[in-house]
Structure formats: C-alpha cells, structure tokens
C-alpha cells in the first residue's frame, strides 16, 4: 500500500479511471453584459460549449476574453444575462436565477485562497465541516487520509499555509477541493505565478490526480502549451466580446509526461494550434484596426 502510493507519487498511474457518471456541463448561448445601462461591456457573447463527464478541457485566451466570467458563472459567483448553463442536465444558471455556489463545483483560485488563519487540516476539512455530515474527528481523519494519499502531506497538517511553498499551497488547495468530491473542478490559472520547475511538477501532480479520479476539469490559462499538454480539448477564446474561436481536440495519449513535449506528435499539434491562434489573433487585430479607422 505504502509502496504503491509512493510509486504513484512519482509516475502517473498507468490506467485512466473510468468516465464518471456525473460532471457533464452544457453551456448554451451564454451572454454576459456588465453594466447594461451604462458602459455596456459585453464579456461573453453567445458562448456555447459541451463538456462530457470526465473531460479535461482547457480554456485559453488573452486577459479580458471572458474566460474568468465563464468560470464565475459556472462557479455561481456571478449571474449571466442570457442563455443557460446545465450541470448533469439540471439548470445551474439562467437569466434571472440567483447565483448559487456549491461544493459540487469547487474553484482553485489564481492567487490561492487557502485561509491563512487556519491550519492545513482545518482548511482541507472546511467543506466537510460546513456540510455537517461528519463529526470533527471523522472530518480530521478523512482530511489526514487525503493529505497522506496526495504525496505524504499528512506531516504538514498542522502548518499554516504561509509556512508552505506556493507549490505546496496549491496542492493543499486542490486537496481541499477534491475532498468534497465535486462534480467539476474549476482551475483558474492556478499555476500562473510559478517558475517553470514548479509548474512542471504541478502539471505532473494534476495529471496524476486526473488519471486517478477522472474528475471533469475546466482549466483556465493564457498559456497554450500548458493547455495542450494537460487537456483533451483546448478551447481558444478571443478578446471582448468573448466568443469561442477554436476548439482543438488534443489526441495525445495518457498518461502524459513532460517528455511528451519533445515528441513529434506534440510539436505537430502545437504548431497547428499556434498557427490557428495566430491567424485568429491577426484577424482580430485587423478588425480592431478597421474599427479604429
């Protein structure tokens, strides 16, 4: 058991978990307008996408393309103006519905949102305690088990987040999300502020988690290479108003290692994607110039 878990700590588990029964997302023709009476900023314009349960989808786009808006609507932090969002065929958000966050859609934030005044264990068990199904002891036991399973982290259970490296903080934050068994994991540029070495490590870590759990993952990033390496599908968005411009299927085998990034298959895919994105960017740029003129 211990041996197996140490081994799985280093290499992704060889088999990909089966598709889960829940975690299907359907975004239908969603538009979001900020300040409709005044500035009338269109953040999303008729955006649609489907995600099967167990999909790993990356959303790529420059800042201001509406990718955070999309995530906020899914997470229940914000309303939409028109359109609907369904999670497992149940209406999650529509025009006029109250935004409702929940532990079935947990977000891992760009800046990190572990509560600095709580220990790692208190952070990890926070969702369990709020759900109220477990006693303090049971929640702690489960928290320790999750920490231990995710690379022997039980030893840092009583540390405060600020005592940990940023990579470690992210791992704890992902554990804090996973322990609630969410249907979908929303990752909002979680590795943005990291150096290359740590970022690579976190990629392996995330891929390992995906192999093992097959959670539906929406991964927001502005880094195309990261998106291609991690996801099964990469959706490229354009600047305001945010619409989907490209939907790239990534046919690279799993489990993935960083060695993959040097393979011909990956490079060919990257070249294609880069060209497509550049083409799109150029078109957007030209449009912009015409608007200016």
């Amino acid at each position, binding site marked *: 058991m211990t041996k197996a878990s140490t081994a799985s700590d280093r290499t992704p588990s060889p088999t990909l978990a089966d598709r889960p029964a829940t975690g299907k997302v359907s975004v239908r023709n969603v538009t979001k307008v900020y300040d409709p009476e005044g500035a009338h900023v269109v953040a999303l314009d008729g955006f649609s996408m489907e995600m099967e349960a167990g999909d790993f989808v990356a959303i790529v786009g420059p800042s201001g393309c509406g990718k955070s808006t999309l995530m906020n609507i899914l997470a229940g932090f914000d309303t939409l103006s028109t359109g609907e969002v369904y999670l497992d065929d149940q209406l999650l958000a529509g025009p006029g519905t109250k935004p409702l966050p929940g532990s079935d859609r947990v977000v891992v934030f760009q800046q990190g*949102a572990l509560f600095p005044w709580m220990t790692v264990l208190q952070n990890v068990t926070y969702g369990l305690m709020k759900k109220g199904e477990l006693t303090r002891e049971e929640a702690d036991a489960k928290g320790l088990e999750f920490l231990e399973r995710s690379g022997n982290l039980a030893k840092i259970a009583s540390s405060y987040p600020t005592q940990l490296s940023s990579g470690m903080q992210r791992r704890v934050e992902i554990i804090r999300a996973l322990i609630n068994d969410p249907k979908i994991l929303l990752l909002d540029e979680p590795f943005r502020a990291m150096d290359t070495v740590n970022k690579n490590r976190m990629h392996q870590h995330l891929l390992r988690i995906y192999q093992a759990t097959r959670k539906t993952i929406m991964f927001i990033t502005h880094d195309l290479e990261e998106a291609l390496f991690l996801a099964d599908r990469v959706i490229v968005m354009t600047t305001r108003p945010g619409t989907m411009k490209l939907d790239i299927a990534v046919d690279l085998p799993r489990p993935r290692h960083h060695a993959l990034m040097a393979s011909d298959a990956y490079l060919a895919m990257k070249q294609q994607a880069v060209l497509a994105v550049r083409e799109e960017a150029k078109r957007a740029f030209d449009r912009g110039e015409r608007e200016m003129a």
Partner: protein
Amino acid sequence: MNVTSLPARRASNRAVERYLLTATGLVGFVVLWYASVKWLPIDAFNRLPDPLSVVVEWTSPDPDYGISIFTADYYTHIFYSTYRALAAFFLAVILGVPLGIMMGWKKSVRSYASSLLGLLRPVPPLAWVPIAILMFPGVELAVIFVTFLVAFFATTMNTLVGVKAIPEDYFRAASCFGASDRDVLWDIVIPGAMPSIFTGLQIAMGAAWFSLAAGEMIAAQYGLGFIIWEAYNLIQYPTIVIGMATLGLVGYVSSSIVRWFGKRLMVWHEQKLGMAG
C-alpha cells in the same frame, strides 16, 4: 563544549547593538534637555525644570510639591487616569469593532455610517469637551466620553479597513464550501480582519491616553492630566514633567499589552511576517 552557534551569537550581537542605540537616543535626549535648560542663554528655557531636579523630586520620599513615587496621591492620580483610559478603550472596542466589521462587510451599513463618521472624525477631542460636560451628569462621564471618541474612531476605521482588505477570493472559496452568512462572519471576516483590528486597538490605546490628558486638564479633579495642569498653575514645574513622563510610561505599557495579546491571538500572522522577513 558548549559553543554558541554563529547565527545565535550574531543575533545576540545585533540585540546588544540595538540596546546601545536605544540607550544612546535616551541619554542624548536627557543631555540635550539638561544643556538647553542650564546653558542656553534663553530665559524661557531657563524657567523649565532640568532632568536632575525632576528625578530628585520624583524619587524623593518627601517631595517639595507633594507628588513622588512615595506619595499615595501619585497613585491615586494614576489610578483615575488608568481607569478612565481603560473604560474608554473597552467601550471603543465593544462598539467600534462590531461597527467596523459591519461597515466593511455590508455595503448598506457602510452607506449609513461612513459619511457621518467622516464628518465627526476630524473634530478634535478638545472641541467635544463643552458638549460632553453639558451632555453628561458629572465630570467623570464627560471625560470618559471625550477619551472614548478618538479611540472609537481609530478602532472602527482600522476594523473597516481590515475587512475591506480581505481578498474577494476568500469569500468565494467559503461560498464554494457552502458557508452561510454567519459562517462567513466567523470564519472569514473576523479572523481576516484581526491583524488590522489589533493595529486599530493599539492606536486606540494611544489615542485614549492623549485625549484623556486633554479632558482631564479641563474637567477633572484627579488624574495625570489634572496634575500637569494644576502644577503649571501652582508653578510646581518639576511635577509637570513627572505627570508627562508618567503618562508616557503608562501609555507605552498599555500599548505593549495590547500588542502582546495580538501576537498571542494570531499565531498565523506572526508566522506570515516571519516568513516575509
């Protein structure tokens, strides 16, 4: 074989150096004081008590003007001042912290209260003295009220700033995990604002002492502010300085106590600062 490790020795050297600098500052001040009173050819300065005569009076079992560390009166004055400062301070905490939290957390409360506070805050404590005397039965409550005001504003404002500085993502994260409004208050708002609240309490403690002295000079029969003013009227100049120095001491001690409590309460914050340094 009990050799002190190099970092430890360096740390202790630094501590010694710090104490030396502190001592130099204090000694320098006393020398400057002595020199300007004794040697400067300025009449106004020559009237002032020099440090030596203050210390002699302060530590005399039989003081010329009735106030020294050996007289019961001295402690009666300290007691009255401390009592008023603490009463005002705790009143400010009890009212100011909840108000600041609500203002920071709920926009509607902020809209109600912020312009009112903004208008009242710049009014100096001394300007409140006449109204306070008219408003309250007895001088005691009036002095406490005046002392309370500045401490209250400091507490409220710092609490408000502390709550507003909590990153939006913490609230969002809490809502992801199904935290209710009440949970958010206890799990996010209060602990998140705690460092700033304690900064506010330290400022409030200091502010309580300086407005207290002002209030006591005008409207009290006891207290350190009172003896400073009375000694001035009675031309007992060393006693003025005794009153001032005592105010400085009790103010410093009380602020230190607040700081100490803050450190004990916020282990996580200390560690954060430790990491940064």
